[in-house]
């Protein structure tokens, strides 16, 4: 299928997230409106408390929206609930976390199969797909290893494989290189760049300005608002 690079995959419209504690209110995201296209590799950067992760979680439907809307593939997500939301996440999104979040009692192949288990994919098909993605990421010889037998970089690659296995249109990565050394961080960044080149949109929250060099766009946040956006080649 041809990839339409001008297709809007993510759109936030006057997006607000306000945390409440008693009578106090803490606005974390203040009316952010952005559009991200198919195949874009976008970095969200900013100091701690600028609302990077909150924005990512709102786009990822993990957190509830206080005001405004998030459109994913043109669909508003704020009204989605329960099973519909779970199914939507499973089909549309892939998550990569700083701490990898691999299930400790499942081996590499089984960890990658998890999203396919949630979508009722037959065992033989999910084995094949998980194996194929792992081989593409250079983990073909680690299928039966347990997470604690892998290095940090390998674990993160497994997590990326898990995010990719369901063919999502959007990958959300929260500090994916935060626990890795600079060399491994570059490897992970280049993997994510390759993912983008195949037509998948990647939004990455990071503190590591070095790896943002491979991004198409960098969105700078400060105090819950977009301070500036920088386009790169």
């Amino acid at each position, binding site marked *: 299928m041809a990839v339409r690079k001008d297709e809007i995959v993510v759109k936030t419209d006057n997006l607000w997230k306000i945390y409440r504690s008693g009578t106090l209110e803490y606005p974390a995201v203040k009316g952010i409106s952005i559009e991200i296209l198919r195949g874009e590799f976008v970095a969200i950067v900013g100091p701690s408390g600028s609302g990077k992760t909150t924005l990512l979680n709102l786009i990822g439907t993990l957190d509830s929206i206080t005001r405004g809307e998030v459109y994913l593939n043109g669909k508003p997500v704020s009204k989605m609930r329960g099973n519909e939301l*779970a199914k939507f996440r499973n089909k549309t999104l892939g998550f990569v976390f700083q701490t990898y979040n691999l299930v*400790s009692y499942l081996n590499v192949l089984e960890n990658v199969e998890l999203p396919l288990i*949630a979508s009722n994919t037959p065992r033989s098909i999910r084995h094949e797909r998980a194996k194929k993605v792992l081989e593409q990421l250079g983990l073909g010889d680690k299928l039966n290893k347990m997470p604690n037998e892998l290095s940090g970089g390998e674990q993160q690659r497994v997590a990326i494989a898990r995010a990719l296995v369901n063919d999502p249109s959007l990958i959300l990565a929260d500090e994916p290189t935060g626990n890795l050394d600079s060399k491994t961080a570059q490897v992970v960044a280049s993997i994510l760049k390759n993912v983008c080149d195949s037509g998948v949109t990647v939004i990455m929250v990071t503190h590591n300005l070095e790896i943002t060099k491979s991004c198409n766009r960098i969105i700078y946040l400060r105090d819950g608002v977009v301070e500036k956006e920088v386009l790169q080649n």
Partner: protein
Amino acid sequence: MRTEDILWLGFKSLKTRKVRGALTILSVVIGVASIIGLVSQTAGIQASVLSTLQSLGPTTLLVTPARTTTLTQADIARMMSIPGVEGVVPVVSAQMRLTRASEVVQVNVIGVDSIGLKTLLGEVRLLDGEIYPPSNTPLAIVGNGVAFSSTQGIQEVYVGQPITLEQPLGSTGRRITLQVAGILDKYGSSAFLSTDNSIFIPIDYAMNIFNRRAYSYIIVKAANVESVNTVSEYLTTIYGRNISIINVQQITQAVSTIMGFFSILLGSVAAISLSVAGLGIMNIMLVSVYERTKEIGLLKAIGFKDRNVLTIFLSEAMLVGIIGGILGIVAGAGASQLVPTLIGTYFGSSNLGGGGGFQGGGAGMQGAMASFSYTPVITLDVVGIALITAVSVSVLSGLYPAWRASKMEPIKALRYE
């Protein structure tokens, strides 16, 4: 999500936490084993008692003297004249000591004529030898437990061999010598008749050596089931409260009812231990839910529905119930076989006597436990109920922790440290 995947994830998780999983399963094993062990004992005791009663036949009435009454030859004639009575078997019994090859054992000596012996035992199954003739001779038929040593099963008494019996201490100190005419097959014993630990001798000879003029009890056989009540009424009319009458049919029903209650009572006690196991499962699973908060957050982030998470945790609890239930059934079956042996050991294997005959008043039980033996009965019903209870308790205990897991918000769960 497919059922096989839910079970697979539950099993994987259970397998990872080996020690914790094993301890949780052990608590279910103990509960189920208790149910199987205790209920099988009451079922075994019930079967043993009923079997003995049934062997006497539904037309049998046991007449034992009450108060200072004695039953003599005159009473035999009087009972025979009652309409509907087919036969009357007088029995006399006493406790004596037998010196065997290596040990001295206490036995019950029962005087009954050769025809009455058939009535008493239902069917005379001889391992060796023959029934003594209907005459006043010093011949004996010995029970299986008398001929064979209880500990090693070695035969110590043989057909044709003379045996010497002594009155127990505190009695007159009489010694008699009998010749063994036959050895009975294993009968098992009950609260009413300890066949295996008894020595049967001709009644006339027994009356002589015991120096008795009265019988210990009389077995009255009615012509048919319908005439049992009529015969019983006649006996009451003649003797009033001077005798006790045990109607086999009535007592069979009573025993069934009483043992049924016991079964429920003991089963309930065992079920309490299973409930405690349930609390343990709930506790362990709550801990597990807290420990796996991040994992739950991840599962929800990648598209697992609330009910998927709920069923994964419930499947883990169910597996604890199934594995614990099956192991508990095996353990309970094994332990239940040991209980009768332990009871036998506790009450002394050398004390063979004590349960003989229907002597004394009332139900005629005398030192029954000393020689009482039975085989525990494990029915499919009990196994099924125990397994279903184990699984139900486990699943119910896992319900709250699983519900908590399923209701976690993914963002909070992922942030959990």
